[in-house]
């Protein structure tokens, strides 16, 4: 008895194209590209980052510097700020400065501070989290408990404390290593976000440590550091990236909140949060709505886009956090 011809295996070559496996990243990429809101958010972020990078160009094109005063533009009778016009797209503020140019520069500050802080927190959090999950024992207890304590601190008050103490003289803190200004805000943000990353990485490492490929690598005599950073870390990249898309917008909100309270970036650095604080001076915003609307909407647009992007990435990667 012979088998019917229909049961013969289909040979892949017959379909013309050889079958290729997709890597994890190709799968994530495919899933992500089909997610319209997330793709839109990604493009908005690209545009905003480009705008922030080109801030000096914007200033050059309009011919208005971020701190340049145009007192002639204030309304003639009361000296009040004037609203949007063809020359000043977003109007001018109480000092007579171009709100549009300041918004672009403020965006630059927001993105610089939040990305830098996120990078530092990630580098530290990943290292510490890997160590805690991989080695376990007292090191794990120390790191995990330390992270718990940091997460239970009221961040704004600690940020206010550190910046008020370190801004008392121009020399800064710790013999000048922590200077008042942008660097201090970055340091504070990083200090209070690393525990989130460390906790995530620790948990994942704990699970991965038991897997065969880790045992195999150890069996081949790979040193601990190699196992941690070459074998385990690549498996965590996707989840850390998802987490980053959540930490960056929260950093942006936090920087703006600190600047709003007057303990963020220094006066001379344009900041969206401080622009909104200036608008509340004597309830100015009830008249000059553009002083509050544009910086606020811009902030909302950035954080909203990052959150949508993060949601999309999380869905594409599956599971996640």
């Amino acid at each position, binding site marked *: 008895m012979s088998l019917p011809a229909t049961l013969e295996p289909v040979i892949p070559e017959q379909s013309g194209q050889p079958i290729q496996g997709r890597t994890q990243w190709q799968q994530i990429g495919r899933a992500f590209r089909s997610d319209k809101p997330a793709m839109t958010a990604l493009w908005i972020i690209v545009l905003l980052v480009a705008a922030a990078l080109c801030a000096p160009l914007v200033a050059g094109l309009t011919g208005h510097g971020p701190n340049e005063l145009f007192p002639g533009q204030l309304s003639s009778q009361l000296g009040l700020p004037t609203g949007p016009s063809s020359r000043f797209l977003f109007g001018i503020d109480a000092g007579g400065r171009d709100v549009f140019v300041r918004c672009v520069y403020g965006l630059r500050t927001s993105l610089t501070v939040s990305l830098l802080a996120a990078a530092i927190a990630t580098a530290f959090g990943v290292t510490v989290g890997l160590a805690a999950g991989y080695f376990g024992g007292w090191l794990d207890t120390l790191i995990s408990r330390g992270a718990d304590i940091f997460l239970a*601190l009221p961040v704004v008050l600690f940020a206010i404390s550190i910046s008020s103490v370190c801004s*008392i003289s121009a020399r800064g803190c710790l013999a*000048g290593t922590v200077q008042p200004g942008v660097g201090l805000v970055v340091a504070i943000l990083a200090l209070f976000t690393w525990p989130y990353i460390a906790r995530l990485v620790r948990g994942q490492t704990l699970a991965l440590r038991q897997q065969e490929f880790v045992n195999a690598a150890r069996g081949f005599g790979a040193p601990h550091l190699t196992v941690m950073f070459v074998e385990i870390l690549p498996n965590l990249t996707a989840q850390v990236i998802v987490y980053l898309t959540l930490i960056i917008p929260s950093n942006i909100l936090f920087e703006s909140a600190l600047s709003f309270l007057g303990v963020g970036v220094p006066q001379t650095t344009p900041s969206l949060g401080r622009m*909104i604080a200036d608008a509340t001076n004597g309830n100015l915003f009830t008249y000059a709505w553009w002083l*509050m609307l544009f910086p606020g909407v811009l902030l909302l647009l950035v954080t909203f886009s990052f959150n949508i992007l993060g949601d999309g990435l999380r869905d594409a990667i599956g599971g996640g956090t």
Partner: protein
Amino acid sequence: MLRYLVRRLAWLVVTLLVITAIIFVIYFVLPPVSPAVLFAGKEATPQIVATVQRELGLDHPVWVQYLLFLRHLVLGDQFGWPGLGFSFVNHAPVRSLIAGRIVITAVLAAGAAIIWLALGLTIGVISAVKQRTLWDRISLGFVIFFISAPVFWLGLVLLWVFWYKLGIAAGTGYFPPGQYGVLTWLNHMIMPWLTLALLYAGWYARMTRGAVLDTLRQDYVRTARAKGLREARILIRHVLRACITPVLTMFGMDLAALVSGTVIVEVVFNLNGLGQWVVQSVSSDDIPSVLAVTVLAALAVMVANLIVDILYAYIDPRIRYE
């Protein structure tokens, strides 16, 4: 339960030591000038600086200074308990300056927490039950919007729309109910409460939705349905009960963030609580006041965390034996 309590209290003592140590380092070790100069304020005479120097024990080694700082905090100083020092800018003990303000901050935080839990849970449950409907989509949009909005900006927009443009809400400021009547007080508190609550309600709606969806798939829910129980009863008795624990965990973790939020909301709505005080103190270089509020807030969060943990162990017996 008793063993759990003892262990939890021991951990509380450890965290208190670590947190006071962190605060001590920020105020006594970090600054580029002597803490005495820092504490004495801008217009300090050499005599005042010398007094502060003596009171803080600055001529002793650092660890003695820390113990003294702790001793003042735990046992009180010459101005009473807890020992929070003297504000040279205001010429008064910090304790007396902030006593009345604590109530306002507590009222703001408690009211906001109630609204945010109610709002978050309701939206989360409805959007889980009506999964993939228009309502679900709207509420997901709501969630992401409020998660993304800067809280101070949200407060200002609410003020602008409801107070300035529409005139249906009261403006800024705190109006004690005893003096102005409950209605006036409530009218002035609604917007601050809402602003603070909206900041967190989104996260809770999102988490509740996930938890309810997970629970709805459980076998015991199917059993309950097979028994012929009404859907509302299943939702309240079987599903919601299981979802309370993750919500409570998150609530405990968010208490610190709540304190941060109250600072901003108090500034926006001109409520004279601790948060507004701390921001004013920064601009007047009144460091003892900033220190006092930071310590108090950190301790309050710790104690609130303890209460949440005990409540948690009471609701979920598994926790006690971990």
